[in-house]
C-alpha cells in the first residue's frame, strides 16, 4: 500500500458508516454493539463501523454497508443547490476521501452516482474557493476553515501560503535569513552540543 503511513488516509478510514451484519458474530456481541444482550452478535444487527473494518468485512460478504448520513439523498439535494456554503466539515472532515473510498465498496446502495456527485460538489466549491483563495479577508478565512473539508482546506491553505510568500518576496528589499527557533538563554539547554562546524573556533571566549 503506497499510502500505508499516510496519516490523512488513516484518519479518513476511521470515519464510520452504518452497516447491517449478514452473519452472526461469535463472542463479539457487546464489543460491537453495547446494547446487545447476547454473547454473539445476531445476524441482522445494525452497527456503525469505521470504514477500515466495514470495507474489509463487506468485501467478504459478512455485512452490508450503507451510505453515511451525510451522503444521503437529502444532503445531496441540499448541495446541488448551494454547494459553496454548505458546511461539509461538520458532516465529515474527509468528505471526498471517504466518499471516494465508499465508491469502491461493492453492495453499497446508491453508490452508482456517488463519484459523479462528489466530483460535481468539488467542482462547484472549487470555483468558489478559487475566487477567494489568493486574496481574502481574515473573516472569510475564518469561515472557510470551519466549513471546508480537509482536502479543500489543504488546497485553500496552500493557495494562501503561496500568495503570502509572494507578497513577502515582492515587497522585500532583500532576503533575511531567520532562525526557526527562539533560543532560550536562561535555560542553557542549547549549550554543549557538539556541532560540527566547518568554521573552526580558534580561541574560545
Amino acid at each position, binding site marked *: *500500500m*503506497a*499510502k*500505508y*503511513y*499516510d496519516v490523512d488516509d488513516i484518519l479518513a478510514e476511521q470515519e464510520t458508516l452504518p452497516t447491517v451484519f449478514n452473519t452472526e458474530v461469535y463472542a463479539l456481541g457487546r464489543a460491537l454493539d453495547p446494547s446487545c444482550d447476547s454473547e454473539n452478535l445476531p445476524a441482522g444487527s445494525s452497527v456503525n463501523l469505521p470504514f477500515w473494518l466495514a470495507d474489509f468485512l463487506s468485501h467478504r460478504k459478512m455485512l452490508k454497508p450503507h451510505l453515511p448520513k451525510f451522503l444521503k439523498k437529502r444532503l445531496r439535494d441540499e448541495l446541488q443547490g448551494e454547494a459553496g456554503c454548505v458546511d461539509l466539515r461538520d458532516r465529515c472532515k474527509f468528505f471526498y476521501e471517504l466518499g471516494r473510498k465508499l465508491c469502491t465498496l461493492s453492495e453499497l446502495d446508491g453508490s452508482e452516482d456517488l463519484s459523479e456527485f462528489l466530483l460535481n460538489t468539488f467542482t462547484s466549491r472549487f470555483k468558489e474557493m478559487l475566487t477567494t483563495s489568493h486574496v481574502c479577508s481574515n473573516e472569510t478565512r475564518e469561515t472557510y476553515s470551519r466549513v471546508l473539508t480537509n482536502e479543500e482546506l489543504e488546497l485553500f491553505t496552500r493557495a494562501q501560503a503561496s500568495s503570502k510568500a509572494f507578497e513577502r518576496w515582492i515587497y522585500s528589499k532583500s532576503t533575511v535569513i531567520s532562525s526557526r527557533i527562539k533560543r532560550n538563554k536562561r535555560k542553557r539547554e542549547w549549550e554543549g552540543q557538539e556541532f560540527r562546524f566547518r568554521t573552526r573556533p580558534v580561541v574560545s571566549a
Partner: protein
Amino acid sequence: MEGPATSSGALPPDTNDTDDLTMEPSDDLGLGPEVPGGTEHPLEHDYDVSNDAQLLRQAWINESLTPEVLMYREDLVDRIRSLIARQEKIVEDYEQDHNQALTRAIRFAEVSRIKFCLRSYLRKRLSKIEAYAIHIYMNEELSSKLSPQELEFAKDYIDAVNRLFKDSILSRLPKDYNDLLHQSMESEAPDMIPEPSLDRHVFVRVLDDLGDIPIDDQNTTFRLQEGDIFAIRYRLIRDFVDSGRVELV
C-alpha cells in the same frame, strides 16, 4: 572612483590597474566542455541549457519538482566537483593578493552559487530516497538511478528505520504481525511500502517536438510542441525528463 560601497570586504581595484581583473592564463582554468557562453542567447532564452552550471541548475529544479528520484547525473556532478575545487583553490590563493580582490569576489560568488545548486540537488534526492527507500531498494531499475553513495545511504537508512520500528513497535506485536513489509502473514506481496505517486501533476516545458502523446486510455492524444508549457500528469511525461526532452518549471 569611489571607495567600496559594498559590504564584501573585497576592494575594487584601482581603475588604472585594470589588468588585475584579468584571470590567470586560460590553461589554468579547468572549465567544462567548451560550449559557447550564454552571450548569444537573448533574454527570452534564459532557460537555454548550455553549460555545466546551467545543466546542474536544471537538474536541481527537475529534482525539486518531480515526485520520484531521477537518474543521478554522475558525469555532471563529477565535473562540477572538480570545478568547485579548482575555483576554491584560486579563491584561497588570492587571499593575500589585494590586486585580485575583485576577481576573488567574483569567483567566490560564482562558486557559492554552484555549491548551492549542488547541495540542493543532492539534498532533494536524499529526501526522496528517504521517503521511498525500500521501494527504490527493492527495484533494480530504480536503484540504478542512484549513485553508489546514495545506494549505500538508502541501505543504511532502511536498516536504521527498520531497527527503530522493530525496537519501538514491531517487537511488541504478535509474531504473525511483526513484519515491516507485510501487514501480516496473510499478505502475499509486500503491502506496506510507500512509493511516489506518479499521478501527481507538474509544470513542464517541452524542449523538443514530442508529437502527439496519449493522455488517457481512450486514445485521446495531446500535442506537445517545443516551447510549450503544460500542467500535466507526471506519469505522461516521465520518460522525457531523464532524456532531457522536457524540463520542469
